[in-house]
């Protein structure tokens, strides 16, 4: 990797963790709501 490329992988990791977190949180929410009588 040449030195001209910006070093911003931190943002990438943050986003890539955030997305499945949101998705899984919603999936769990749906699951729990389907269990309620």
């Amino acid at each position, binding site marked *: 990797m040449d030195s001209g490329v910006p070093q*911003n992988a931190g*943002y990438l990791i943050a*986003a*890539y963790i*955030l997305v499945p977190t*949101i998705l*899984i949180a*919603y999936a769990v929410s749906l699951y729990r709501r*389907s269990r309620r009588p």
Partner: protein
Amino acid sequence: MTIAQKGRWLVIVGLVLLGGVYVRALAFTPVERFQGPAQKIFYVHVPSAVTTELAVILLGLAGVFYLFLKDPRLDRFAESSAEVGTVFAGIVLTTGPIWGKPIWGTWWTWDARLTSTLFLFFLLMGYQVLRGAITDDGLRARYSAVLGSCAVVLVGFIHLSVYLFPTLHPQPIVLKPSKPSLPPEMLLTLLLSFGVFLLLFTGFVMQRYAIATRRAEAFHG
């Protein structure tokens, strides 16, 4: 398998495949020369935006059909599409700033995609707030259908206005997932990601629809 169970499987498969997309994006897709690794947020950001718009269009079309057919299942589908669409809008509006900060230097930009997704988010919010304020099922379904129909016409109008009035300055409320000529590896990753997000959307809507059906059955006995 019930609809809910099928939906759950779709979501699980979708999440696993999302992991696959991640692997492909991180290890097998080139790093963009000028934007660096953060550009790869693109592969989750853009499909989410398209999914959000799809959710709005679907709830609108369901509304139009409901006005003709009066089938409550259409209303339950619309309700589900709205909620799931909001989740994906949330993904766009959070990954957008995370992408924007390293690339543009600011957390928020009024670029076409973020602006239009924010706009769709407001449509979705208004739709759900209206639904929440009406207790009668029939009235809620009818009013939601009216609002949803207007929403889908609005989205269509915005798209058409770009084609019919191209000489005007790019309006801020234009939803056009910008696909600059991408190298084939990037395009493939993006397309795979589209597929995964579509899968997730379908799975979520199915589960949400099942919840709506159960709620309706419990209410009416």
